[in-house]
């Protein structure tokens, strides 16, 4: 008697997701992907590849033309209020209310996310965890740098404690140190069992942290590789080739076997 390994249900899943805009532009073309608990899926792609469209569809900011975006098996576009209970989001450029302090902003957005049992100590713990200096807690956001705002954004996502997290270019514009800290945090969240779907331009960070890397080109997921498959692969070259759209099997094989690390 053989036992099949128990496969956990994906927390984030795109099923044949297609989006065609009114002007005829196809932003997503039959996209299929799954992110299980404890996994990071990094979407790579150039501008207009469909990365942000995918995230916006999961957040119900865009209605798909066909297919579905599921969060915890709930259709995000059919039952958005139910689906959003299970997802957090950190954008490329986290913007909070400038007249509120960091603590006030965190309190508002966390309570908006449905968590109303936290105390100040919990907020402080989360803010320290994301690397925000204690003296900044009660300062107004208008004096914050982009890095500090991003830290507040990830603290809000952590405190919402949703099982799935969407990250849209989260390290864009951050200095290397802040980027590294952010990557460490995302890794920790993955280890806590969160399912993370991240769009990024940062090939090296994607390779460093992601369990899966998908390359999108004109709304099509042209490649999907596991962490193991990418080991020893020149991901940059692979990415460029896929983006150029003339990758064939021979070249792919050559790239995948050429350990340039």
């Amino acid at each position, binding site marked *: 008697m053989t036992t099949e390994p128990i496969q956990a249900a994906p927390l984030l899943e795109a099923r044949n997701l297609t989006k065609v805009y009114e002007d005829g532009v196809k932003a997503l073309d039959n996209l299929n992907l799954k992110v299980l608990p404890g996994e990071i899926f990094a979407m790579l792609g150039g501008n207009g590849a469909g990365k942000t469209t995918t995230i916006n569809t999961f957040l119900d900011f865009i209605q798909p033309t066909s297919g579905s975006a599921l969060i915890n098996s709930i259709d995000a576009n059919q039952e958005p209020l139910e689906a959003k209970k299970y997802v957090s989001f950190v*954008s490329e450029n986290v913007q909070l209310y400038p007249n509120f302090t960091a603590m006030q902003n965190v309190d*508002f957005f966390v309570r*908006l996310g449905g968590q109303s049992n936290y105390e100040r100590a919990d907020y402080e713990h989360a803010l320290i965890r994301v690397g925000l200096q204690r003296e900044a807690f009660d300062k107004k956001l208008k004096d914050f740098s982009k890095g500090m705002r991003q830290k507040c954004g990830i603290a*809000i996502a952590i405190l919402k404690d949703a099982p799935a997290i969407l990250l849209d270019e989260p390290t864009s514009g951050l200095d290397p140190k802040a980027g590294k800290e952010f990557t460490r945090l995302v890794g920790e969240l993955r280890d806590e069992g969160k399912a993370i779907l991240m769009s990024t331009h940062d090939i090296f960070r994607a390779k460093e942290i992601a369990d899966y890397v998908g390359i999108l080109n004109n709304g099509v997921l042209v490649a999907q590789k596991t962490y193991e498959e990418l080991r020893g692969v020149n991901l940059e070259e692979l990415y460029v080739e896929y983006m150029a759209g003339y990758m064939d099997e021979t070249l792919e094989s050559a790239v995948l076997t050429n350990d340039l690390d």
Partner: protein
Amino acid sequence: MLSLLIQKELKNILLSPKFVATFAVCSILILMSVYIGIQEYNNAVIQYEANQEIARQDIAEASNWRSIRNILHREPTPLQIFVSGLHFDVGRLSNISTSDDIKLIRSPYSDETLFAIFRFIDFTFIVQIVLSLFAILFTYDAINGERENGTLKLAFVNPISRASYLIAKFTGIWMGLIIPLLIPILIGMLMLILFDIPVLASDWGSIASLIGLSVLYITFFIGIGILVSSLARKSSLSFLLLLVIWIGGVLIIPRLGITAAGQLVPIESVAQIEAKQDAFQRARWNQYSEDLSETWRTRSAEMEGMDEAQAQAYREEKEWEWLEEDDATRKQVQVDIIENNRVLYEEVQNQKKIQEKLAFNIARISPVSSFRLAAMNLAGTDIDMKSRYEENMRFYKDDFTDFVERKQAENPDEQGGMRIEIDESGVSIDFGRDDQTLDTSELPRFEAPVVQAGTAFGNSLLDFGLLVLFIIVTFGGSFTAFLRYDMR
């Protein structure tokens, strides 16, 4: 969730510099306007009482009933402190005599032209102009500003409905604007008590209705602000659009209504009316002359064949009859002329009413007109204030004339005017004051027209209803726009 969103919205507004500016500006303006209004009202009361006393003295000093005259003054109302309306533009007195027609003359601004240059800023002006601008400032980026900042997207990552968000947005902004309106106006009401302004229960009712009206007016501007902010993608564009809407609604449409009504229902000018009256009068008197000539020819014909003595006797016999006939014909001419003048006056008044109604109905396309018209109705400083006073004064004039004629009939030997005597000691002038004292205790008393709060509210009901309708339309529009709003 809704209360959390409302709290956030209110907190965001209360912590913003624009709230501090709004609160400071509204407080200063409203309290200043109430204080100046109280001073103006007190001055008007002092002037009114002094003029009444002078009029009483003039009557008391009159030598005879034939020459008695009265002057009636328009009574100041405490509500003019909040809504000056037409108070400063309508005449404040009219002569009452048996011969003069009623006409309110000498408006406060015609007497005090300096104050007309920088007109009195009352509470309605502050609400109409200043608070509506602040409402635009609070709402122009209510939706698109949050989209531009990224906070809209961050909020909607969470399980909140668009309806809750919009209701919270509206409620928060509404509270943020109502606070700078209500606190100063409540202090202003307290000032009325502290300064011993005689505010009647009915007046308090009107003030409460006025505050309710102002709240509706501000609510409309919040609604239109949120609507435009939901329709325009960029806050800079929505600000521009709202500014254009504000200029159109506040400055253009109300005036356009008046101009359009003037074109659609033309009314003859005073000069044209007077020319018509003169023409009729001339024609009627010419006719009278011709008729009189004809009458005399007929009368002469009746005497044909008589000798001189017979004719003389006949003339003497008929003299009174003919005089009475001629007098009756002459009086008929006068009656015809007066009747013609009355008909012309009524025609003009009817045309004016039609024009006025049309002007108001066109102007009511803008809620600003509804607000202004309703506010003036509530305070009794509306466009009918003049006609209300003049009508009551005409009633008074009839009573006054009857009274004077009765007194004249009771004193048939009364001589009017002054008496000049020349004797050996020289010339003496006697005004007759010492000879007799007129008993004016029974002189009719003038009752100023009073508009009760209930009546005033009834008169304003259409405008209240229109404001509510405008609010429903703007909020319906906002909801429709926001339900389809692209959050990205």
